[in-house]
């Protein structure tokens, strides 16, 4: 890249940063204050934790699409690995200590995931955090040589990956008789959200793990 261009870009970025700073220092009073709304509707939301309430109820639609994005990324990776040279060679044998450790930790991590999922209703936590822990377990097992890379997912695995989104969609549609998408009946809000989160935990865990495991088999 030409030097003058680099300098120009650097200058522009600095200018942007300064402009942003200046803009932030000159902000008016907020016209809309959502925290109050959130607090006011928290009881009706079916969960006690405001962030979870926003994530899965008030703005649950964002989350629905977010889950789709996650699965979509994995589809993209699978699309690539259809053309990746060299396929699943078994994981390279790892140190026995690592293997034993992984064998011990994996079940524990599943347990932690379950806890995070449950606690999400009233404290920081929830499906994504839980899924991340599950995924970590998957990666750990792979590193320990206990899990093969996923060249192409089998029917069962595909089912697991899609489950979260399908459950979420089903619940979303179930809201239509109330008038809108994702409109939980107040009485059923918390069980429905728990159902969705459970499905998401599994699928997000598998998806995140998949994002690593799908390309793990490509040739070096």
């Amino acid at each position, binding site marked *: 890249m030409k030097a003058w261009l680099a300098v120009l870009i650097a200058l522009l970025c600095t200018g942007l940063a300064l402009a942003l700073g200046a*803009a932030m220092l*000159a902000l008016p009073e907020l016209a809309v204050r959502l925290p109050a709304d959130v607090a006011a509707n928290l009881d009706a939301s079916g969960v006690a934790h405001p962030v979870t309430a926003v994530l899965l109820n008030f703005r649950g639609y964002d989350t629905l699409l977010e889950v789709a*994005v996650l699965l*979509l990324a994995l589809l993209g990776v699978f*699309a690539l690995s*259809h*053309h990746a040279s060299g396929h699943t060679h078994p994981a390279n044998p790892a140190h026995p200590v690592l293997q034993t450790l992984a064998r011990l930790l994996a079940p524990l991590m599943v347990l932690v995931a379950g806890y995070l999922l449950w606690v999400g209703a009233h404290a920081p936590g929830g499906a994504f955090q839980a899924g991340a822990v599950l995924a970590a377990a998957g990666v750990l097992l792979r590193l320990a040589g206990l899990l093969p890379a996923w060249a192409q997912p089998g029917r069962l695995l595909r089912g697991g990956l899609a489950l979260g989104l399908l459950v979420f969609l089903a619940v979303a549609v179930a809201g239509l008789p109330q008038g809108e998408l994702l409109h939980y009946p107040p009485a059923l809000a918390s069980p429905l959200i728990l159902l969705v989160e459970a499905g998401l935990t599994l699928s997000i865990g598998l998806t995140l793990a998949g994002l690593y495991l799908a390309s793990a088999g490509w040739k070096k």
Partner: protein
Amino acid sequence: MTDLLDPLPWLIVLPLAWGTLAFLLGPGRGGRLAIAAIALQLMLALQLAGQLLGNGARVHAVGGWGAPLGIDLMADGLAAVMLLLTQAVALPLAVFARGYFAASPKGRELFWPLTGFLLAALNALFLSADLFNIYVTLELLGLAAVGLVAIAGGRQPVTAAMRYLLATLLGSGAYLLGVALIYGTYGSVSLAVLTPLVTGDAPLAVTLATALMLAGLLLKTALFPFHFWLPPAHGGAPAPVSALLSALVIKATFYLVLRLWLELFAPLTTVAAAQLLGILGVAAILWGSVLALTQSRLKMLVAYSTVAQVGYLFLLFPLATLVPPGVADSAVQGGVMQAVAHGLAKAAMFAAAGSMIVATGRDDIGHLGGVGARLPLTLFSFGLAGVTLMGLPPSAGFSAKWLLLTAALESGQWGWVAVMIVGGLLTAAYVFKVLRRAFLPMAAGDRVTRVPRTLEFSAFALALASILLGLFGAPLLYLLAIGRAA
């Protein structure tokens, strides 16, 4: 019970569902499912348009909370037009894709799931009335598009996909920063809530946000000089993918630019900014057309034609900004008509090009001889699509040109008239470059095999639609007027 059959949410849920199911079915499966589902989506879009014509624009408060706490979906005339375009283009393309991947299977494994998510993203984007939710739909759209570019594998497509991904991520990054600034200023991301709050004397943060969001969207729309990523991406992907991307994906971000410009940011728009957009459009028209003329690969020619045609879309801004309302209406109608015309015609053109490539076994304009004799219907479709792109009557492209020309003349902006005329002639130059070659007899050593009928007829259907819309375009304009503050 009527709520359960409300077309608006189903337009988003349905493609998500069938995309996921197609993934469940396994590599390469799900074509029939997709075609059936898209046909259903088309009916839903028509039903929604009918509802709008009956009762005007409508809001769907997801979760029942309503803005600003919840997310609103909003369907007005503009959204309905784009929804109709999307489903109407997707249906023939799905039929085309089934035949195409049967003939050349490279990259068929995940085409259907990715397409399902792509259509879901488009529909969700058109219906969203929430700046942050639009960000999510943008990312869904971008990743689906990148995935589709890469499905064929190989050096050129993967490079193109990488370039495309970085460009689209940068674009949505800028957009997201804009959203953050807006929320930080007003405390909401709902268009309905924000529109009355944004005024001419808005703080610096909002001006910055406007610039950042529009710039990000222009990058995703591939307006000159942000077009660098488009030709390799659209020219390198399998034909059905190229068609989807050129016809629909760039229109989505254009739609956002238009909506934000006309509604949320209207108080901040200036003639200077509008002129700048118009000038970039002119540059795009000239640069894209000239490069299209110099291409030797058919798909690259069509891809550069997209770069040029995107330019036409942006001519509407100088014609619609701070001019008498009548003129502005005509300009907006022209711009949207151009988007629709190009959507149909470019889909037809890429489909026809795909058939020619399958038939000749190579992507080379120099070896199209004999296509005219062996694939008359395909060449005819390519020609009809070309007529629309040239803006010759009777075609939707002409209606668009007519509306824009009228706006230009009535606001006394002669420069744009000249541009549109010259652009039309340049388009003719590169379209006839292809037609002339295809009319020639087959060269020695070349081969032109027959292609499945579905390939030829799906392309023809799209091309015919782009012509007929030129004769029966009035209803579209009535629909478009719904919910627009005249």
